[in-house]
């Protein structure tokens, strides 16, 4: 099992870069970018799942040429004039520059194995996938778009939790997204939730766990509190797979762990089951 240690505390501070950017933390194999890309960022040696960017994820899931992005430019404002060591606005601008995204989620319409769906895919590279106003709003719009078009919603989450620079409004994205899922369900549509590493804090505690079906990627950390917080409190040594997808499956929290190469086919099957339109 790969030993990734990303918890909610690191949400805005990326881990120090490994010596070689594409070194597998599981088995220390080295890869070129194009090798990893062809393998959907899964280590051929040990099966470690590297983080996957939102656009690459979408490309790996949808039928070619079917993705139509929505609300691409929607971005968070700075309601508190938040300033720690640097202003929040500066952090936002920097994240936008480095990721090419306006915030930590991409939403839009597409089809998977010929079945129409809405997608909402998070990107950990944008401020640790933290959920602020823009993520909450875009997720909510994805629910509405799915309901209006009569298609299921497929979500892929990767998030350190709520974005603290937006203060209490970040917390409000939890009930906001929960209400959006409820509206989606009332419209009779399904939500298929895929939890990638890491899905923690406020995202785990809101829409991510409200899917009709809960899938996870191998090794994904899925804990509400970060392992470090739990360890500090309990002062016991945590098990190797504490909070990981494998432990969550064992404790009955999720329906299946799906390795990335099988994800598209699994979602295709579920879209057929939930009668997504052809």
């Amino acid at each position, binding site marked *: 099992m790969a030993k990734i240690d990303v918890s909610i*505390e690191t*949400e*805005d501070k990326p881990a120090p870069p490994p010596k070689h950017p594409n070194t597998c933390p599981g088995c220390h194999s080295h890869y070129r970018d194009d090798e990893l890309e062809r393998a959907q960022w899964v280590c051929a040696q040990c099966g470690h799942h590297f983080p996957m960017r939102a656009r690459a994820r979408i490309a790996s899931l949808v039928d070619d040429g079917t993705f139509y992005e929505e609300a691409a430019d929607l*971005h*968070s*404002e*700075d*309601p*508190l004039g*938040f*300033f*720690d*060591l640097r202003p929040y606005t500066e952090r936002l601008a920097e994240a936008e520059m480095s990721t090419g995204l306006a915030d930590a989620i991409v939403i839009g319409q597409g089809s998977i194995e010929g079945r129409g769906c809405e997608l909402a895919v998070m990107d950990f590279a944008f401020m640790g996938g933290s959920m*602020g*106003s*823009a993520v*909450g*709003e875009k997720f909510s719009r994805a629910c509405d778009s799915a309901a209006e078009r009569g298609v299921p919603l497929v979500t892929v989450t990767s998030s350190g939790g*709520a974005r*603290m*620079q*937006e*203060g*209490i*409004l*970040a*917390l*409000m*994205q*939890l*009930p*906001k997204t*929960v*209400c959006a899922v*409820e*509206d989606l369900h009332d419209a009779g549509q399904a939500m298929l939730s895929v939890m990638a590493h890491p899905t*923690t*804090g*406020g995202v*785990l*505690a*809101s*829409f*991510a*766990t*409200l899917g009709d079906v809960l899938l996870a990627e191998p090794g994904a950390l899925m*804990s*509400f*509190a970060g392992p470090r*917080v*739990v360890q500090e409190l*309990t002062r*016991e040594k*945590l098990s190797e797979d*504490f*909070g990981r997808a494998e*432990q969550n499956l064992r*404790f*009955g*929290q999720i329906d299946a762990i799906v390795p990335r190469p099988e994800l598209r086919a699994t979602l295709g099957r579920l879209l057929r089951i939930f009668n997504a339109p052809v």
Partner: protein
Amino acid sequence: MPPSEHELRLRDRLSRLRSVSLLGGAKLSGELQRLQRQLDRIGEEPTGDDIWRSVELARHPDRPYTLDYVEALLDDWFELHGDHRRGDDAAMIAGLGKLHGRTVVLVGQQKGRDIHQRSERRFGMSNPEGYAKAMRAMKIAETHGFPVISLVDTPGAYPGVDAEQHGQGGAIAESQAVMARLTVPTVACVIGEGGSGGAIAIALADRVLMQENAIYSVISPEGCAMILWRDASQAKKAAAAFKPDAVHCLELGVIDAIVPEPKGGAQTDPQAAAQLLGESLRETLEDLVDVPGDELRRRRRAKFRSLGVFA
């Protein structure tokens, strides 16, 4: 004296409220009057010192807790125990009682007074069994048409090994989902610490109130300081930055009204604090009890779906 920038923002919220079609005529004017009264009481924007004072008062060891308000305000109180599945979480209270003659379901976190209680009640930090107990109580409310009152007072959900293994994140989400489905009136009030996911789990209500010296926040000041300044002792600075006080929460539209406390804080006169809370709850419930259930639910969801600042 010209109005301060802060007052301007509050006035701006007022004028936006006027144009919101969510609240019908009579209700809107009640809302406006309440906001106006609050505006009159609030002169200046709270400073960093004011905010820190709220943090200290919200955590004051003599501050009234959920069961103190239950005792002062509810008749015929019957406490429910257990989730009827796995356990009984002492950090979460749930029960039935009469508020001014009307049966209500009450849920709320409960801190402990002495060392024994504090450990048993985990300082008001719930496990999944606690949220499951609250959900069970809310389902009784739904079956019988009783309003739900939720008193929020927690540093956060309990970050324990068992809690994580038993689905803490999913329990918090499910509890919110249950509240988003209710067709009975719901009022939440933050009476001390409104800490993060542990708080919002029981705060997805038609009306959200906050006591004057309560705090409501996405992270504790210490946690925020630790992450952003790498130094927990910068908590005061962190609090000043993320503004967990009631006035700022009102300004941001996150809460609907501020419940006054006795001068010096609720701990100086718990009876008076209870009376003020009781009046606010009564007034708020009266606004809601005649609204049809599906309309309540529609408005509740629309309200939470409107929160956030983006462009």
